């Protein structure tokens, strides 16, 4: 589904990603772990199409098509979703109106008619109950005055509504207490199927207890220095990153 080859990218002349190779297939869950500043968030922003990063080398294909020159919204229309580490507050625009606009713009791009209002409402209700959200949520301004946990839950709610093929969850676990984490993870699991894929960006093993990854990658200084199965994450939890850093520096 997603294939990244030798990706080099940076910002303001500083190279952050130094040759990333990554392949994510339909039905898979990948976890990308790594210490602070290793380039995790940069990678997720570049996949979603953030324009302020300069890509100097490499290739990025989504479902066999080069997406490097596509605008963020065009990538979204193809089914790429990024759950933000710090969701943006937009006072004055309600969650409902925001979602309605997002869904109908996506449908428009796909040559479909707008979703009928009653269908939209029903879908919102279903997905909200999946994430154990209060329906008062819908009429609140987007992320405005939301707690950290509410913001993250709202991200996953948007994901549930937009039904992406590839969801990148950037530190969705940070700021969540254990109950909220369970609810969010449960929501993500229920949305998984053989046709979609998830990339989890995280510091900690904690989230991976609930959403079990097929592949775990460790990102360090802009490179994937190790990949393995879920046991790699457990080892990281136990031993920290230092042994990997040493290993990487001896490479």
């Amino acid at each position, binding site marked *: 589904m997603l294939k990244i080859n030798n990706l080099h990218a940076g910002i303001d002349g500083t190279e952050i990603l130094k040759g990333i190779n990554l392949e994510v297939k339909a039905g898979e869950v990948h976890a990308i772990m790594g210490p602070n500043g290793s380039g995790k968030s940069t990678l997720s922003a570049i996949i*979603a*199409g*953030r*324009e*302020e990063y300069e890509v100097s080398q490499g290739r990025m294909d989504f479902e066999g098509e080069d997406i490097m020159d596509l*605008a*963020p*919204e065009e*990538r*979204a*229309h193809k089914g790429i*979703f*990024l759950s*933000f580490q710090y*969701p*943006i507050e*937009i*006072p*004055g*625009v309600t969650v*409902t*109106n*925001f979602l*309605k*606009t*997002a*869904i*109908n*713009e*996506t449908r428009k*791009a796909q040559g479909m008619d*707008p979703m009928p209002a009653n269908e939209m409402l029903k879908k919102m209700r279903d997905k909200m109950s999946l994430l154990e959200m209060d329906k008062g949520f819908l009429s609140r301004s987007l992320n405005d005055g939301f707690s950290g946990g509410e913001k993250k839950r709202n991200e996953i709610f*948007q994901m549930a509504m*937009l039904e992406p093929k590839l969801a990148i969850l950037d530190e969705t676990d940070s700021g969540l207490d254990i109950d909220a984490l369970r609810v969010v993870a449960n929501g993500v699991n229920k949305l998984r199927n053989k046709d979609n894929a998830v990339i989890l960006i995280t510091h900690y093993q904690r989230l991976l207890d609930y959403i079990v990854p097929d592949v775990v990658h460790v990102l360090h200084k802009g490179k994937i220095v190790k990949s393995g199965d879920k046991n790699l994450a457990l080892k990281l939890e136990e031993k920290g990153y230092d042994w990997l850093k040493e290993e990487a520096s001896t490479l």
Partner: protein
Amino acid sequence: MDQLKDKLESSFIIFENELNGQAKTPIHKVRQKAFKTFEEKGFPTKRDEEWKYTNLKPILKHDYRIFQRSENVIDFKDVKKFFLSDMDTYKLVFVDGIFSSWLSETTHDRFDICTFNSMMSKAPEVVEEYFNKALPSEESLAAINTAFAREGAFIRVKKGQTVDKPVEIIFFTTRQDKEVMIQPRNLIIVEENAEVQIVERHQSLSEFPVLTNSATEIFAQKSSRLFYYKVQNDNLDASLIDTTSVVQQERSNVSIGTFSFGNKFVRNNLDIFLKGEHTETHLDGITIIGDGQLVDHHTLVDHKIPNCSSNELYKGIYDGSAHGVFNGKVMVHPHAQKTNAFQENNNILLTDKASIDTKPQLEIYADDVQCSHGCTIGQLDEEALFYLQSRGIPEKEGTALLLYAFANDGLRNVKIQELRKKLNKQIAQKLGVNLDFEL
């Protein structure tokens, strides 16, 4: 500039001659005095502190026609879109400065909703009591309006009455062959414990330059409530100078919203004079303009009395080569203890060519007060835009959504749902998008 001044001077002589018997009335004495002020002062220039950022010259150079005749009849269906069409309202409609009873809906039942001119003949003593008592007498543009004051809206809501539906005041200009200058004069009196909602707009239907020099005096008596909305969305050949002065008595609540999207040139002088304790004043504004447009807001809240509160919020979005001016004066006099005065002016510049001159001016001479002001000038938040784009919302729509979100609390005091809808639509239109939802 001098040419227009000369023309106004000769026009005033003609105007006086036409008045016949009325030339000796107290009202006309006020006019004469005002005209003298104008003759002495002339038009303001950029040398005047209050006109430092706004050049009046280009709009004064036209050879405006000063006296209008009602030559054109307007069909309601052609102008319906300028009204709050989906609801019942009282209407005071003027075409080329002259009252159109055909398009209007007036009343004298529990309140007077009629015209300045008719009131001058019917009840001159009422007009005399209030005429030119609120406007700043030294201001020359207001003075010309006063000198030529003859027609406009007259609204008097009697004690304890609430006007059952909004009042719309619309001034159309229709001349297709000549530049025109019109000078509407409105007088609004909201008596004790009375309430009214008013929507005012000026609309040119002509492609020729129009200069509207409008003046409005508002008297909000004890415990009255007034909601006044100015919709400034005229075509790009039209210029508007609006001077509005409000006198507020004890416990009155006045809310004024100014929504500026159109016109080539707009200058708003909005002065609030607090004359009784425990008053509440809300001034809100949204300005969204583009290439070649200028909107200048000058406001004054004069806290002379203790225990009053005022709250001011002006939002501006400037595209292309648009130029905005905000000068918000708040005076808190020595005796005005326990004053609450808040002012906020936030602006977004969308291009390098757009500009805003913003000048909050708080002068506080009392010590037990709560006052604050803030002004910001910024650009669009790129990260927020990326957030919207990553959800599938295209750049253009996302930009509009963010700008809407930025501006929309300027609508917080708009109590008329129909007007809100209309303003929402105008904002979306101005931002160049067709958003699917009720903004």
